[in-house]
């Protein structure tokens, strides 16, 4: 007969005993050592039936094929651009993947994307050596102009988006801002009213801080209500 040693949604540290006995199955972020299941990182306990896993509270983004991310240009190369992906692995975007426009050989690539430009792109491939290929050809993918960038921990992105986009929609509607969320934790916010744009940005940071606290949706709703005139200091 096994026993769970921690509570659901408890914060646990590496090496902490989560359960004893052979009844439970270790999943993401946990491992079995003999008759115990231990944490293999810092995280939030998630118990579903017999499966114990950890929800990460921190940790750098890891590029995945198919992810839509927001990166920025760090280098202009001979036939493309180097893009920072907010991870340990920078990516290269080739001319042919950047635009359907014809770019002549020898053209000034900074006319298209210059250092510091933020772009919404999709990861088409991550090799076994962690080389990342990107494309900007696709619906919604483009250079981002205006607005501001808010960086959050990539693990919090699902909470910022919400079930079927419900959380980010709530923020968009309340603040009247455009919001694009990259899977890599980089979020773009643009509003016509600076005070509302600031409110949207602060709301996103608040979700990042409080993502693991129960009642998040209500807390955020209340925060948006309380500050519906926007934030001015």
């Amino acid at each position, binding site marked *: 007969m096994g026993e769970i040693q921690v509570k659901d949604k408890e*914060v646990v540290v*590496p090496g902490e005993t989560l359960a004893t006995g052979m009844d439970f199955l270790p999943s993401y972020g946990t491992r079995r050592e003999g008759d115990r299941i*231990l944490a*293999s990182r810092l995280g*939030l306990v998630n118990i579903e039936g017999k499966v114990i896993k950890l929800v990460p*509270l921190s940790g750098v983004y890891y590029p995945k094929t198919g992810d839509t991310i927001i990166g920025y240009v760090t280098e202009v190369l001979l036939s493309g651009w180097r893009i920072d992906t907010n991870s340990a*692995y920078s990516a290269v975007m080739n001319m042919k993947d950047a635009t359907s426009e014809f770019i002549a050989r020898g053209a000034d690539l900074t006319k298209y994307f210059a250092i510091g430009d933020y772009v919404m792109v999709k990861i088409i491939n991550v090799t076994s050596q*962690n080389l990342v290929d990107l494309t900007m050809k696709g619906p919604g993918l483009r250079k981002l102009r205006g607005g501001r960038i808010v960086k959050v921990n990539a693990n919090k992105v699902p909470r910022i988006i919400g079930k079927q986009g419900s959380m980010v929609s709530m923020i968009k509607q309340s603040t009247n801002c455009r919001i694009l969320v990259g899977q890599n934790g980089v979020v773009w916010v643009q509003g016509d009213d600076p005070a509302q744009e600031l409110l949207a940005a602060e709301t996103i940071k608040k979700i990042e801080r409080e993502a693991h606290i129960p009642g998040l949706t209500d807390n955020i709703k209340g925060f948006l209500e309380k500050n519906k005139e926007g934030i001015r200091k």
Partner: protein
Amino acid sequence: MAYTERNDGRKPDELRPIEAKAGVIKRADGSGWFKIGNTEAYAAVYGPREMFPRFRQNPEKGVLRCHYTMMPFSSAGDRVRPGPSRRSKEIALVTEKALLPVINLGDFSNAVVDVFIELPQTDAGTRCAGICAASIALADAGIPMTDLVCAVSAGRVDDMILLDLNYIEDSHENGVDTPMAMLHNTKQVSLLQMDGEISLDQLKQATELAKKACDEIYEVQKAALKKKFEVTENA
């Protein structure tokens, strides 16, 4: 005069007061702060991130790189000249070896995890404090880790077997200082250095003291990490 009572009134097996915090350096991916008596250490973790110089990259797994610095005004006595010294480079090396056994960087080929340790105030036990802070910082950064690492010094002054020597005890002419780092669950030793003459029996006693202290330190490290994420009132 033989040393029969500790100069700060502690019992032989008593640690100095310990405190710890997580997440103290906001720009870092993870950070920790650990204080034991008057020795204080910050640790900041950046990574996994792109590794330069490129020729140091490991295509099989990520690299752990530690750096240790005492702030120029941290030492009792003369100012510490800024810049790497042989001592600080060695401490960085043994710190890396102390932490490596619990770190799992298999998914991060060609990347690096940088750990920066800085001490604003020192009173012996500095490499141990640095390792304790670094453990917190690595966990805070979400690095895959099998366990936390705890470190403390134990040793001998005259005939007393002591835990956590302070500067005066460490500088005693007839003494031995043994800094040790251990993986908390298994108590396996990942850092061990010793300077001075000691009998095997005395050494056994000293290492036992360190082992017990490890649990006490672990509780403080654990609490610091949990506290960072505790439920707080709506801001």
